[in-house]
């Protein structure tokens, strides 16, 4: 049936055809205001058929996985990428075996009462941090995604991807108003996530973050040294550098890093990798959504730009192999180049020394989301937990502020890289598609970044 579908898809002269089928089950629960509000179960099942002809991609998707449903999608996709009609030879599919990430406790097999109990434990732990913690909202979510890729190169491959995430947001109330704190770890594992991460720890981190911000002063404004604590700043490099290294953006001349492979783009202690093979991390998978194995791709080595990230379409055009970074949110989306786990690797500096060597600056412990214009490299980043550094010591907490800068400039201005390391899990959005990614980095210092605070000078 898959061969037949591919054959139909290629009848209008396509160079490449692919069927991507997905069956995803998910469950989530939410506690808010001291009460388990609801549990939600979801199921999404369908297939997308893609036909590539020259520079054009035709795409159609369907929730109907019957032979007729797939045939209709293949015909629609072929019509979209229409060329000279022909009678292509039948594709002969060869199954490639993939070892999905091992899952100790598949979430489907876990009693809903155990999931609910985690939420209640988080609520209790967060409220125990003090009466000022006025609102606690906790969320549990798991997803099991079974994917199948079959393409006209003869590839047939399947994978199971299971992810589990837990999140807590607290609102603290003080004289200066309301402050929020959030913590939301996630991994590519089943219910065993909670063997490593206690809901109480997540809740305490979120609660303490909201409480710390109660006494926060308005943030300073203007350029200053910024120290990013391990883990917290990884997302900055994801945004400010990673997106500009995606081959689709490079190809359309929308990246400041275009034509710069082999050039020095950062200080020698900067090494940046994207690695979808890290066991258990949030952005990890065995195969990408084009059926290619996940890989470790070195992007910056000792400060020199070494490669971009590639999906099948862009790699085919460039006459090279994919780096296993072709991802899509669902079968209803076309794949494109996406990051997985993007890490700036640890170096030699003692994290404490980095702070001690900074006479004045901003110490960032938690960042919110960010945004980058890849064409210019300009980015902004929300800081959700930060402190002043004065005379080499961490002092007063400061209120939410934005960091603003330029990706290539920030890379050049990294002047200390610590020996510690941590990661952060999040959802990366690109062209309306969200996929799970992680970011990571050691404690490091950027000699100058613009901080957009509200303190009067």
């Amino acid at each position, binding site marked *: 049936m898959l061969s037949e579908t591919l054959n139909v898809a290629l009848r209008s002269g396509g160079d490449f055809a692919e069927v991507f089928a997905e069956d995803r089950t998910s469950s989530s*629960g939410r506690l808010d205001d001291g009460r388990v509000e609801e549990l939600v179960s979801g199921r999404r099942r369908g297939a997308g058929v893609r036909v590539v002809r020259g520079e*054009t991609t035709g795409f159609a998707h369907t*929730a109907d996985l019957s032979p007729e449903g797939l045939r209709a999608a293949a015909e629609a996709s072929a019509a979209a990428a229409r060329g000279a009609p022909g009678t292509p030879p039948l594709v002969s599919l060869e199954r490639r075996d993939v070892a999905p990430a091992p899952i100790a406790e598949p979430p489907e097999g876990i009693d809903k009462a155990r999931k609910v109990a985690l939420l209640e434990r988080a609520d209790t732990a967060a409220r125990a941090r003090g009466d000022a913690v006025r*609102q606690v909202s906790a969320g549990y979510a798991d997803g099991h995604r079974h994917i199948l890729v079959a393409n006209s190169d003869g590839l047939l491959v399947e994978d199971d991807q299971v992810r589990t995430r837990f999140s807590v947001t607290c609102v603290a109330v003080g004289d200066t108003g309301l402050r929020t704190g959030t913590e939301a770890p996630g991994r590519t594992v089943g219910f065993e996530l909670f063997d490593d991460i206690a809901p109480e720890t997540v809740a305490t981190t979120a609660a303490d973050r909201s409480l710390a911000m109660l006494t926060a002063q308005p943030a300073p404004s203007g350029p200053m040294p910024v120290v990013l604590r391990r883990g917290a700043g990884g997302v900055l490099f994801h945004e400010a550098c990673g997106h500009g290294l995606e081959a689709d953006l490079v190809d359309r001349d929308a990246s400041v890093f275009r034509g710069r492979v082999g050039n020095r783009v950062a200080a020698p202690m900067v090494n940046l990798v994207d690695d979808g093979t890290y066991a258990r991390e949030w952005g990890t998978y065995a195969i990408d959504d084009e059926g290619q194995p996940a890989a470790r791709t070195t992007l910056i080595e000792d400060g020199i730009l070494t490669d971009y990230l590639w999906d099948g379409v862009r790699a085919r055009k460039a006459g090279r192999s994919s780096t296993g970074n072709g991802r899509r949110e669902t079968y209803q989306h076309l794949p494109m180049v996406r990051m997985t786990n993007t890490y700036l690797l640890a170096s030699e500096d003692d994290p404490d020394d980095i702070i001690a060597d900074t006479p004045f600056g901003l110490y960032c412990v938690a960042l919110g989301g960010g945004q980058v214009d890849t064409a*210019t490299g300009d980015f902004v980043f929300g800081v*959700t937990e930060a402190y002043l550094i004065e005379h080499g010591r961490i002092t007063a907490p400061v209120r939410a502020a934005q960091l603003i800068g330029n990706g290539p400039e920030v890379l050049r201005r990294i002047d200390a890289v610590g020996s510690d390391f941590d990661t952060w899990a999040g959802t990366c959005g690109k062209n309306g598609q969200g996929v799970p990614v992680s970011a990571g980095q050691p404690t490091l210092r950027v000699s100058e970044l*613009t901080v957009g605070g509200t303190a009067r000078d």
Partner: protein
Amino acid sequence: MTDVEPVAAARQLAGRAAPGEQVEVYVVRSRETDVEVLRGDVESLTVAEQAGLGVRVVRDGRLGYAWVGSLDPALTDTALVEARDNARFAAPDEWQGLVSAADLNGTTPVTLDLWRDELLSVDTAAKVDLALRLEAATAAADPLVRMVESTSYGDAAIDTTVVSSLGVEATMRRTSCSCSAVALAGDGPETRSAYGFSVGRTFDELDIDGTARDAASRAVRLLGARQPRTQRLPVVLDPLVTGSVLGVVGGALNGESILKGRSMFVGRGGEAVAAPHVTLVDDPTDPEARGATSHDGEGVPTRRTTLIAEGTLRGELHNVYTGRRSGHGTTGSAVRGIGGPPSVGARALTLTSGSRSAEKIVASVDEGLYVQSVSGLHSGTNPVSGDFSVGAVGLMIRSGSLAEPVREITIASTLQRMLLDLVEVGADRRWLPGSSAGATVLIGEMQVSGS
């Protein structure tokens, strides 16, 4: 199985409510086309028809929910079973429950004509041609446009139906289409990018030339942008920026946020929260609004809700649950997809227009900043604390005229202060994609952080 009729599927499931159980089914079916073009060629063309439904079950004040991205009866039956099972684990809540047809007596829905058959008859070739023409027009709009980074056309025809075991049934249909282009302007090694768009209910309403002109001129005028020094300045917000900021303010006027203490407007009803000439309403009954709809996500007729009247906080947005719990009653503001139970949200926020054009407002500012676009709005604004700090690009205003471009700045204040310091709203109201209308706005003073 794609032949299953959505309304019939919804009625069939809702009709299976057991005694003592309330069941609501929310079903959506959409037909969509998306065209992306690059360098004079079609980059991708997506055609899709999809359908799915969500089932909400309430029993003894306990809520359970399940959804499925299909109308296959085997899967939708499972959704009802799962929703029932999920309800067993929720905490009982006295305010939880569906609205009944009797509750809605006396509220008449507005009649809106948001469906255009002609959009469905436009053939794919014409859609591709529109995108190609837009790309060419953007490239030709200014000699400094180096490349068109992306050009797209998209349309959708969406039917939505809510059916409940308490007798509520509402069906909404709408068509929409849009086109957009991102121009890259370059002069030597420098690149600036900007975006233009047009939206409509049918094909003929799209303005290709205007979209191309906006993308090109907004990118070109940023060439040579530098980082200005840190200072406090009057700030003029472009209509697109105003629309985005209103979205954040609307989030804080959401009854759910207010009930749960997660809004800067908690306990401030009746107080002066904005300058005296500021009136903010949410009016999904306005057919011009992109978020216009006759009924909300629970089948409740929509209406115009005044949120801020002449600077005084007068209203909140509610769905059935938050309306009951707060005692204010629903305002027909339930928003949802199939993936979860309804929440609360604005659909059509707009400030009452002022009398002057954008040019006159700029001319009234001796020295200030014109903000063309902002970035990091999601991370940089906090509807709970009101903290506001976002990245911006724009043009300085000198002696009442737009002057040199600036970049790598943040503008910061608090939403509370910005509302109180809102000096003027322009006459140039424009409905934007999403849930708000934009207009040029002058804020008396904000912190502009640069070098």
